[in-house]
């Protein structure tokens, strides 16, 4: 099994490198001279040429990539055109806030989704099932930027129970003063994982319940508690995979919800950068979020291997 895990890690390296290539290319697909994407428009000519040299932009693309990758590996993601500050520092602060939001939304969404999905599977074909399925379709169909606005209208404007914007004063802390800011965006963001988890859990659990071995388990006279353990362990690899993907999507896809709630995370940072065409920020944020996603997938893969004995054999 250790060998398999090492092989998975080895396989993730070329993926990570390819991801960095795609991020590197973002500067080059932007219209115009890539140097314009790195320095502000009012920079003196000699400084521009100096930067061009530093980044190796006068050299062929592969060499440029190597130079850029060297910078990235040392934690240098370039400077923001708008603020002139290093991208990496701001990004870490923002990523922490996004992580708080994404993780909360994910945990809430997973709990509700798994609950509804199992309920639907055990009562398949009844009104409980139909209700859970409708809820799930709603969850995956709703544009969450719209849902966010509706939340603000109800809970901030009409009822005035939760603040509509920001993440509270100063650094993030797990106290009510800050958590009250988290509730609406996290609820909004959780609708997709609720929908997807409900669908997935319902599908996999009802599939497992239809398998022959469940008849064997009943035939052994096992109590429901013990049977549940079998269902959970069989369903876990699939559900874990979906949960991993979802957490990654929430991290990388929170831009719209962060924009609605002015949540000061990577999404708001990206939004501002898009507005100002601040390409180094777009590039840096994309790279960090995508790398997080690659890591997350790797962890899920390894966890699956530990649960399902059949994977190693493949």
């Amino acid at each position, binding site marked *: 099994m250790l060998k398999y895990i090492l092989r998975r890690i080895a396989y993730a390296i070329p*993926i*990570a490198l*390819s*991801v960095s290539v*795609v991020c590197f290319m*973002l*500067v080059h*697909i*932007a*219209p115009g001279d890539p140097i314009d994407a790195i320095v502000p428009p009012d920079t003196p000519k000699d400084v521009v040429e100096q930067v061009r040299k530093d980044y190796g932009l006068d050299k062929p693309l592969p060499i440029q990539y190597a130079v850029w990758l060297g910078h990235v590996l040392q934690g240098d993601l370039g400077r923001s055109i708008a603020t002139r500050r290093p991208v990496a520092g701001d990004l870490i602060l923002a990523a922490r806030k996004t992580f708080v939001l994404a993780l909360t939304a994910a945990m809430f969404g997973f709990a509700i989704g798994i609950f509804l999905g199992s309920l639907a599977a055990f009562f398949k074909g009844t009104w409980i099932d139909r209700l859970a399925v409708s809820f799930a*379709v*709603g969850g*995956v*169909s*709703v*544009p969450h*930027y*719209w*849902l966010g*606005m*509706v939340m*603000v*209208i109800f809970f901030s*404007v*009409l009822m005035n129970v939760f603040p509509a914007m920001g993440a509270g004063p100063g650094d993030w802390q797990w106290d009510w003063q800050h958590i009250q800011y988290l509730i609406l965006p996290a609820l909004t963001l959780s609708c997709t994982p609720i929908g997807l988890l409900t669908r*997935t859990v319902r*599908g*996999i659990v009802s*599939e497992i319940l239809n398998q022959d071995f469940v008849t064997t388990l009943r035939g052994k006279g096992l109590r429901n508690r013990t049977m549940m353990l079998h269902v959970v362990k*069989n369903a876990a*690899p*699939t559900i874990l*995979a*979906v949960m991993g993907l979802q957490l*990654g*999507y929430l991290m*990388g*896809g929170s*831009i*719209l919800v962060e*924009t609605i709630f002015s949540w000061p995370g990577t999404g708001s940072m*990206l*939004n501002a*950068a*898009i507005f100002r*065409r601040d*390409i180094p920020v*777009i*590039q840096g*944020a*994309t790279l960090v*979020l*995508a790398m997080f*996603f*690659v890591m997350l997938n790797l962890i899920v893969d390894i966890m699956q291997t530990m649960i*399902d004995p*059949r*994977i190693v*054999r*493949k």
Partner: protein
Amino acid sequence: MSTASTTSPDISGASASGPKKQQGYWAGVGSRVRRDKITLICGGILLVMFLLIVFAPWIAPYDPLQGSMARRLKPVGWQGHLLGTDELGRDMLTRLMYGGRYSWFVGITPVTIAFAIGGSLGILAGFVGGKVNMLIMRATDVFYAFPSVLLAVAISGALGPGIFNAILSMTLVFIPPLIRVSESVTTSVRNLDYVESARATGASAFTIVRVHVLPNVMGPIFVYATTLISVSMILASGLSFLGLGVKPPTPEWGMMLNTLRTAIYSQPLLATLPGICIFVTSLCFNLLSDGLRGAMDVRN
């Protein structure tokens, strides 16, 4: 021995129907859809919306770009404006009808292009196998390493705003999943006994693809593509919400939602109208593709 692979798409539509049974199979699908009330209702709603947005220039009550400062942010049902007016005094109903043209176009086009490109690449990878498969699937893996919204936003953000760039970036996002689905469907069909026997009787690769593979893989790939439309509609409006789609004053649902955000305090219902349009469209497409998938699943 394969592990539980329920996350992979449902390909049952492919495996059970031999090439000779196509007519009967599709007739069966048709009759199952006709009995499915929810699917029919969703199809009906989408058809009405489609007609409204296509014929907008002839049936819309006002000019979508002509506003009036005196009639700003009037509520739903206000004097001759069935759905009120927006922040520049333009008729909401008119703008929603015109806006739908862009939302639908930017939502559906990327899926259609990705269906053609991703479908072909996936079928190629699945049918040829070997090195070609390796190459295509590894490239797909790279794009799978990005969360889809992030990839679309990043590419679109780098390219700059505009409908063309939005469609381009979304197409890039939807090609990889379509490749994966069509590859797995094609691989499973390729290994079926009757394809093997066609190969054994000396049929050419082209004949096998045309007669035995295509008719059996197109259905499942198509159904999968329809499930993407709902995601695509949300993403398309999302991009233009971020200012990456159409340019003002052109109406588009996502952008209208953004510009009306300032009005959520004074006219909450009005401000959410474009979002309701996106929600209804995406919900109907979702339910429609669910119904279609159910009807095409031979096991039922």
